[in-house]
């Protein structure tokens, strides 16, 4: 594969500990700063990476890697775990914790859970994609980013976010990826 000399890339490995997300934020922030990415552009990337790492810790529970690459104005993030179980979207209400909707209607509930524990597969992604995209906690965090971008309310741009999927180059594990576009240059 041909790699552009302007494409800078690095990655870090973490044990599945609750502190992994904090370590990832610190290391990614420092790396982006070293690459000349301003704080305003780094902020959404760090926020997204933090949630993806937390998600892997919570639901895969294996060692994981955070990868980042930077070329031109695009920051690419990938989080890969090593769970032998295939990732499944976890359909549930944003207000599932309370069991009911709040009086003033549904609100984003920001618990995590992009990747679920093994077990029932009674909600194939295909059928529940819309529901999970809206209500899935991990995506409850990230979809509003897209909405804000569409509404022109955010200067930052999340170009793409994948669902957790099988890693192409290994038998076990799942990869989630996000692309952020820098808008300040």
């Amino acid at each position, binding site marked *: 594969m041909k790699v552009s000399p302007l494409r800078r890339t690095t990655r870090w490995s973490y044990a599945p*500990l*609750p*502190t992994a*997300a*904090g370590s990832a*934020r610190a290391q990614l922030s420092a790396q982006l700063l070293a690459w000349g990415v301003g704080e305003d552009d780094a*902020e959404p990337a760090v*926020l997204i990476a*933090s*949630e993806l790492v*937390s998600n892997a*810790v*919570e639901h895969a529970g294996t060692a994981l890697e955070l990868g980042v690459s930077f070329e031109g104005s695009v920051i690419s993030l990938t989080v890969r775990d090593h769970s032998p179980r295939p990732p499944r979207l976890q359909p549930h209400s944003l207000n599932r*914790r*309370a069991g009911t909707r709040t009086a003033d209607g549904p*609100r*984003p*509930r*920001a*618990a*995590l859970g992009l990747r679920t524990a093994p077990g029932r597969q009674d909600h194939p992604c295909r059928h529940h994609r819309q529901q999970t995209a809206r209500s899935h*906690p*991990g995506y*409850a*965090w990230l979809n*509003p*980013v897209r*909405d*804000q971008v569409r509404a022109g*309310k*955010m200067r930052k741009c999340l170009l793409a976010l994948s669902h957790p999927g099988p890693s192409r180059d290994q038998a076990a594990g799942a990869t989630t990826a996000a692309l952020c576009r820098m808008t300040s240059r």
Partner: protein
Amino acid sequence: MSSRWLRPHIVLIAICGDLDMATTPQVTAYLAEHTATRPQHVILDLTEVEFLAAHGVQLLLTAQDNAQAGGGRLHLVGASTNRRVHYPLTVLGLTDHFDLAPDLATLLGNLDT
């Protein structure tokens, strides 16, 4: 974290540092301990929060539910001025879901009248 009773029915709890997966269990326990008497007003000072992850947002939502379940209210101080808190709340569309007080003095003035 620290807590201070500003009035017999108003408790102020200041949270500092990162609010994420690693820290929310301790903060949750602290909040439970310091609001066990069901104060009418719980004020969380988020001025010193350095990162608000989804776990932290969930903590705030739960704190608000708990306050309301006990007939009280939750108020957030510092959330509107601390970008590291305001940004994720804005992204999640939650700025109208919470009572974001401009500052403590204004909030107390409103609660006292």
